């Protein structure tokens, strides 16, 4: 059914918290996502012309780089973009076949690929561009929050997390229950002022993005060594010039 489920009170809202302060844009989350999801629930994922011009395929996670702010306060922000597993997702309600659904038990938004007709309307209804058409199979695909990992009892418990979270070398990605205010991810959101994306559209996304920390005003980069002109003693200045020759 593509009507949204009645979520039982206290049901978890599983999702990701992504730290834009520590993300270095290395693409490890994107490639590990592709590797895991090329098989399992969503597999295979198409890769057209992988070794020539025009290479393209389905990715559930894409890392953008943006410039934010002006002048000295400006900075580069790397921004991984994936499904936010919204509480009121239109991608589910617009689906004419019932293939697109939100799970009552943990809030994960999934596609039943056997019932999808590939009309693409759900992708139009998603403001975040989180859904991508598998043009080979003719069905819509999307981030599953690694539903086939996080409940998988055949892998060690510590590894029952989304592939992107495990792969991140700077620990910029965190997975947990955002409905529970005591959970580690909720605490992180509270401490760092985690942001919902495009909240005005009313989709109530679950995932949160932690904005970059404020720069400390007086901090000098450590590479800023004194130049020869900064050395007042002419003898030392002359020695410095001779020794650097």
């Amino acid at each position, binding site marked *: *059914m*593509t*009507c949204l489920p009645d979520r039982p009170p206290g049901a978890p809202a599983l999702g990701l918290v992504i730290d*834009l302060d520590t993300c270095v*844009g290395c693409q490890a989350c*994107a490639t590990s996502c592709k590797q895991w999801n090329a098989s399992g629930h969503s597999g295979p994922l198409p890769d057209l012309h992988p070794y020539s*011009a*025009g290479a*393209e395929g389905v*990715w559930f996670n*894409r*890392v*953008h*780089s*943006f*410039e*934010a*702010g*002006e002048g000295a*306060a400006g*900075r*580069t*922000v790397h921004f991984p*973009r994936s499904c936010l597993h919204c509480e009121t997702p*239109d991608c*589910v*309600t*617009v*689906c*004419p*076949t*019932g293939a697109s659904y939100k799970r009552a038990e943990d809030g994960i938004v999934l596609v039943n690929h056997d*019932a*999808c*007709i*590939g*009309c*693409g*309307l759900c*992708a*139009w*209804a998603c*403001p*975040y*561009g989180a859904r*991508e*058409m598998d*043009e080979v*199979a*003719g069905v819509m695909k999307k981030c599953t929050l690694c539903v086939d990992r996080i409940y998988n009892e055949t892998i060690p418990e510590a590894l029952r997390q989304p592939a992107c979270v495990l792969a991140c070398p700077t620990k910029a990605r965190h997975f947990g229950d955002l409905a529970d205010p005591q959970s580690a991810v909720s605490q992180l959101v509270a401490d760092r002022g985690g*942001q*919902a*994306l*495009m*909240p*005005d*559209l009313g*989709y109530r996304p679950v995932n949160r*993005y932690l*904005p970059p920390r404020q720069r400390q005003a007086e901090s000098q980069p450590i590479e800023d060594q004194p130049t020869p002109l900064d050395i007042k003693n002419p003898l030392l200045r002359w020695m410095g010039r001779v020794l650097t020759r």
Partner: protein
Amino acid sequence: MKPAPSIVFFTVASGAGYGLLFWLGLLRPTGLLPQAPAFALTCLGLSLLLITAGLLASTFHLGNPQRAWRALSQWRSSWLSREGVAALLTYLPALCFGFALVSGASGLAVAAGLLAALGAAVTVWCTGMIYASLKPIAQWHHPILAPGYLLLGAYSGMALLAAVSAIGGVVGGPASFIVTLGLAGLVLKLAYWQIVDRLGPAASLASATGLEALGRVRPLDPPATETSWLMREMGFRVARKHAAVLRRICLLLGFVLPMLLSLFAGQFGGGLAVLALLLAALTVLAGILVERWLLFAEATHTAALYYHG
């Protein structure tokens, strides 16, 4: 948004078909149209042909058209599903109408015709609401969009009806209806363009990234050097620079020319009127095709913000 040919053709063809069915069912009992069963049967056949061709074309847009029957199940939440249900249900009174015309059951013909008219209006309304309900697309998520689909469907249906009824010998009434509906359509399109030209996007890149506190946000590096389905579908920008010219073509072909031809036909009548109204019907369809193509090409999706800023 990418103007997929299958969807553009579907909304224009079935819009005109439902418009024709609507006017036929509604106006035939009033006596404004030729009363010969052959006339009504010709119009009915033409409308069902356009509707069916449009619906078939729309399935070409699907990745798995053999599963299209599944789209009838989610009418509780999905306008696309409602459209499918309404489209199929409308066939029942329409075919009943045809049966009544052939067998000469005039009471049944009136009742079935009116029911078919209702079904036609409901179906086109659902088509409009599919687009009007999409919040990420500011140019579509507007109260004027679905009434626009209804009005232009009615207008193009009337153009077809007038052409067939001119062949049947009745010119004046339908031709004057074209002028009225054409004027209404013209005002609607001008108002729509006025609205969308002033409209900002549904969100900004700053709110799309949660980085509003840092100030202005602009794209630096895209996630991939090559394109993707998402970019082709939501990042369509080809037509923007031609939009002004295409709008003028749409107004001229779709509204000004057919209204002049209808006025001419109403004035002179006879064989020339038939020719003029046939030409008017063709230019209306051509103009609405341009209009529908622009409706897609000029629409912007918030997902494109991540790429184009």
